[in-house]
């Protein structure tokens, strides 16, 4: 009994995906969360929930940018940008879609879908570079 009480259990206050691992899945999960938040707010009129949702959506949008920037600046190297000349534009457009004119500032499910599509394009290139 005593041993059961005093055995220390570890509880996680940690993230899902390990840090230091490059994967567009991180940006995708946040973007999917944003899409889910937009849907939840659309069929909910609890004022506290909505206020909270606005704030969380902004923060998750910042996280999308963070994950994309890490890929852009740390994972992809000069030869990748030579082979895929559209890559810079893709990242620019994707981060813009997560910004004030995109999911951060607006409650538009269409923007979230566009963002997910851009991340999917980046993911395709990412997988090709991994396979190479």
């Amino acid at each position, binding site marked *: 009994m*005593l*041993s*059961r*009480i*005093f*055995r*220390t*259990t*570890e*509880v*996680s*206050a*940690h*993230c*899902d*995906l390990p*840090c230091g691992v490059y994967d567009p899945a*991180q940006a995708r*999960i946040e973007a*999917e*969360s944003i*899409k*889910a*938040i937009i849907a*939840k707010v659309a*069929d*909910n009129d*609890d004022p*506290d*929930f909505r206020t*909270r*949702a606005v*704030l*969380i959506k902004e*923060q*998750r949008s*910042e*996280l999308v940018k*963070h*994950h994309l920037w890490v890929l852009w600046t740390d994972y992809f190297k000069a030869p990748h940008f030579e082979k895929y000349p559209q890559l810079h534009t893709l990242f620019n457009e994707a981060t813009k879609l997560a910004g004030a004119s995109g999911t951060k500032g607006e409650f538009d499910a269409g923007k979230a879908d566009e963002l997910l599509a851009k991340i999917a394009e980046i993911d395709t290139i990412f997988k090709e570079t991994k396979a190479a």
Partner: protein
Amino acid sequence: MTVIGVVRVRGRSMEPTLHTGDRLLVLRGAPPRVGRLAIVRLPDDSDGVRRPLAIKRVTMRDPADPTRYWVESDNQTAPGVTDSWTHGIGSLAREQIRALVLFRLPASYPGRRLARRVLRRFTR
């Protein structure tokens, strides 16, 4: 039945409230309270991998289903933050909330080494 227990925190998602290494006294099986911290079992991830027991704040009841609870990380800027706002998680059922957090145990106090020695003898 409620049983007292001790947990140790790992990770940054509850900063600045809690930090890695903090030890907390918890009440297993106790009902969640809105505003308080809880030890929760989040649903498996999209690959079917079991998530570890996690510590979250119970922030409200799910407005769409008042029998369920909404849980959040205190540190919303931690990359990879995983809570009710994360796609695929949402609100938790009562049975997914395993323990109520009572308070943080002090990292050090007079007689701590002696207390640990006594405890070790009893729990061996």
